C-alpha cells in the first residue's frame, strides 16, 4: 500500500493518498493509541486527531523517513500529549497493580477477561503499553517494537515481566480461592 500512497503524493493527489493512508493505518494507529492511553474512547478520539495532523502535514512529507515510521511517530507523539493532558499520574506503580491483582476472582470466570484488562490498565506505562499492543497486534514482537519504536529485546523483557506478574498473581488468587 505504501508505494501507492507515495505515488499519489508525488503526483500531488493528496486526497486520494490520504484516503489510502487512513485505510492502511487506522487499525495500527488506534491500537497504538489504546496501548498508550489505556482507554478505548479516548484512543478513538486521539486516532482521529492523529490523522488530522497527518492530513495537515501531508504536503510537507518529503519521504525522508518511511511512511510507516512517520505515521507511527505522529501517533506516538499525539497519544503521549493526550496522556499527559488527561492525567499522567493516574497510572499505578507496579506494587499497587500487584495489590489489585490480589483482588482478581477466579470464582467469576465470566468476568475474568474484563478483570484482567482492569489489572493490565493498572500496570506502569511501559508494561501496559507492551502487553496491550502485543495482544492487539496478534502477538507480534516485531509490530510492537516498530509501533513503540522500542528495541525488540526491551519489548520481550517488559512483556515477560508483566506476564510473569499476571500469571503469578492470578494463579495465587486461584489457589487461595481453592483453599477457602
Amino acid at each position: 500500500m505504501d508505494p501507492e500512497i507515495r505515488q499519489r503524493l508525488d503526483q500531488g493527489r493528496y486526497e486520494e493518498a490520504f484516503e489510502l493512508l487512513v485505510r492502511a493505518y487506522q487499525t495500527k494507529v488506534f491500537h497504538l493509541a489504546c496501548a498508550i492511553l489505556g482507554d478505548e474512547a479516548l484512543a478513538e478520539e486521539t486516532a482521529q486527531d492523529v490523522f488530522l495532523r497527518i492530513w495537515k502535514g501531508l504536503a510537507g512529507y518529503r519521504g525522508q523517513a518511511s511512511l510507516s515510521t512517520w505515521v507511527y511517530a505522529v501517533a506516538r507523539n499525539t497519544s503521549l500529549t493526550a496522556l499527559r493532558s488527561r492525567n499522567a499520574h493516574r497510572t499505578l506503580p507496579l506494587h499497587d497493580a500487584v495489590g489489585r491483582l490480589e483482588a482478581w476472582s477466579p470464582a467469576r470466570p465470566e468476568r475474568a477477561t474484563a478483570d484482567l484488562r482492569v489489572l493490565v490498565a493498572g500496570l506502569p506505562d511501559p508494561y501496559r503499553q507492551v502487553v496491550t499492543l502485543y495482544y492487539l497486534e496478534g502477538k507480534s514482537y516485531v509490530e510492537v517494537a516498530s509501533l513503540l519504536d522500542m528495541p525488540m529485546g526491551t519489548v520481550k523483557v517488559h512483556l515477560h515481566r508483566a506476564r510473569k506478574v499476571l500469571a503469578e498473581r492470578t494463579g495465587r488468587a486461584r489457589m487461595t480461592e481453592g483453599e477457602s
Partner: protein
Amino acid sequence: MEGRLLEYSDLTVEEQRRVDAHLTSCPACRAWVEDLKRVDADLSAAFAAVRLPPEFEAGVLRAARRERLWRRPSPLPEILDFIGWAAVITVVTSLAVRYLRI
C-alpha cells in the same frame, strides 16, 4: 527455568525439548505454565473485542475535508529551477552563436 518458560515460543526446537522434559518431572513448573497459558488466553480474549467502529474512516475523511488546512508544496523551487536552466541555455546558445560567427 522461569525465563525459559516465559520465552518458550522463542526457543529453538532443541531448547523446547529440554524444557518439555523438565516439565514432565516438575509439577510446580507445570502449574506455573498452566497459569501463564490461562493469562495468555484471557488477555487474547479480552483484547479481541477491541475494535474501531466501522464509521471511523468516514468520520476522519469528513473531518479532514472540513479542515482544508494543508498547504500544497510551493511552486517556487520549480520556477527558480526553470529560470536557472533557461539562463544556462541562453548563455550557452549566445556563446555558441558568437563562437560560430568568429
